[in-house]
């Protein structure tokens, strides 16, 4: 079933030969427990792809496998057709894979400008430059400022994360990933812990992203997800149980039972 779903996805949405991100037979175990079990997904370039499931379904483990922080027990991860299964996170980043974290991971003792500067330099050779102050890199500084400005953090450049609101922190979390100009962006629960108003902000941010960017979004909240993605895979006990267009998945009886039923409804 998952294989059928995967091929359907690539046929319906992608005119290209190889999908931007392709996962086949991916498994990962914590001891005897399969956190991710035989997951196969195909994400075409430019797709807005959602992964949903209750807490503990293996969503974040799946992301860690995609970004390279965990090595799978079996299966492969392909980025633009290239097998990256054995590559480290920085190497995958260099190939165009960006990610955010569910628990905000910023450089907390550095200002927003310094955070963004680090990110902007991430994939350049200048990051090992010793004898020139980073403030004198005009192009990189302008890019950091533009990034902050484009998402409402323009007047927060000289603040540390401790001085930002939770919503701004989640925005910065996404901006750091965007600064490396990824072709595939993995967003791990971008709306985690946000108020309803802040959720709308982050949804706006996500919808405004470059359409050519391939986006994979993890959420456990269907209401957030359906606003930003067009295709959803449902993860349950580490396996993909349903996959398809957002509207279909929402109506799927198995989903309602597993997902809404288990979490106790609204």
């Amino acid at each position: 079933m998952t294989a059928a779903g995967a091929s359907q996805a690539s046929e319906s949405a992608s005119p290209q030969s190889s999908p931007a991100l392709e996962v086949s037979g991916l498994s990962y175990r914590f001891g005897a427990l399969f956190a991710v079990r035989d997951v196969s997904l195909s994400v075409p370039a430019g797709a807005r792809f959602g992964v949903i499931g209750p807490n503990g379904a293996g969503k974040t483990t799946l992301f860690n496998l995609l970004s390279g922080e965990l090595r799978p027990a079996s299966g492969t991860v392909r980025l633009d057709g290239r097998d990256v299964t054995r590559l480290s996170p920085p190497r995958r980043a260099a190939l165009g894979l960006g990610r955010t974290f569910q628990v905000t991971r910023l450089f907390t003792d550095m200002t927003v400008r310094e955070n963004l500067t680090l990110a902007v330099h991430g994939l350049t050779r200048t990051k090992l430059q010793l004898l020139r102050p980073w403030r004198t890199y005009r192009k990189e500084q302008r890019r950091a400022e533009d990034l902050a400005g484009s998402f409402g953090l323009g007047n927060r450049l000289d603040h540390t994360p401790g001085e930002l609101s939770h919503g701004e922190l989640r925005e910065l979390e996404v901006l750091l990933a965007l600064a490396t100009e990824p072709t595939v962006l993995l967003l791990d629960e971008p709306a985690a812990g946000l108020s309803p108003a802040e959720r709308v902000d982050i949804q706006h941010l996500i919808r405004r992203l470059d359409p050519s960017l391939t986006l994979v979004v993890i959420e456990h909240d269907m209401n957030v997800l359906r606003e930003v993605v067009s295709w959803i895979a449902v993860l349950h006990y580490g396996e993909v149980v349903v996959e398809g267009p957002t509207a279909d998945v929402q109506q799927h009886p198995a989903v309602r039972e597993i997902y809404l039923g288990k979490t106790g409804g609204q």
Partner: protein
Amino acid sequence: MSDGGTPARPRAAASSPPARRALAVTDLAAWPLLSLAALGVVTYFLLSGSYLATIFEDVLIYAIAAMGLDLFGGYGGMVSLGQAGFIGLGAYGVGISAEHGFGPWACVGIAVGVVIGFAAATAVVAVRVSGITYVIITLAIGQILWGLSYQWTSLTGGDNGIPVTTAPSVGPFDLSDQQTLRVATLIVFLIVFGLLMLIAASPFGLSLRGMKSNERRLRALGYQTAHQRCLGYMIASFLGGIAGILYVYANLLVSPSTLEFSQDGYLVLMVVLGGIGTIWGPALGAIVIVLFQQEVSIYVARWQTLMGLTFIAAVAFKPDGIAGLLRAARGALHRVATASARQTPAGLAGRAAGPEGGPDLPPGGATEDQDQRAERPSAHRPGAL
């Protein structure tokens, strides 16, 4: 008043960042003066010909090693307890090659080679381990070197150490002359200080801070942190070696006590007491520690106890060290200055009104606007530099 709906943002903006920016500006003005003053004092004592000259020579030498330690430890979060081992490598590198009949410059070259070679061979430690494990393993490396210096008597002379008499000459300047050597030490110190300030402000320096702050995120942004770790370790070790080379010419002798464990401890003390994560902090820390060793020890038999208590007090009450103290003093000065410059009543009302002040009181709101306007010109300054 019009923005009463979003009270949190403007108020947060008004509180600490202007202070920080103003501090940055104060920094710019105070920096050259302070450093010139410090430099003047150090140069005076260094060239005074009194016994204080040797003390300040020691200060500069240990400051070089401590600043190197702080680049990787303070900025990168990789605190080493083996830095004295590299001082020893540099010093023994000179001593042993001099004993084998090499010329003075050849000795220096060999010592630098040994330091770099050993650092490269052990860099795998810095790449592989972090945190307390790194502290312990660098301690072990330092202790291995100390053990070798103590027991490999055929090479090191064991307990007696190796006397070194002839230092190299730079053109007409013979560094065997202690006064000339002190000038040379000051010059090396200034070069190292300048380079480290530059490195700390570079993209690499920023990435070291990022590594300390959140290495996992840094890797996700494309940084192969093994590179950062390797380079940081090499720089820190190299500076330890440079300090060792100067040390052996200043003291005319190298013995196992140069790299015994207490020396590692003193170096870390210099960094922590001076202000971890600043380049000039460890230099100040070196002054304090060396003065403790050389001066306080004359008057107080239990000077180490006193130093220990000072250290505990510093860590408990002022964990960011002398640098933090200075920063706080500057902040206080600045607050006094701005408070009086601002024609106080409205400003004080805005501040005293606290959380509810913004939306309710016209004076408070006006002050915030002033703040925003006032901070703009200064905001561009640090960026332009």
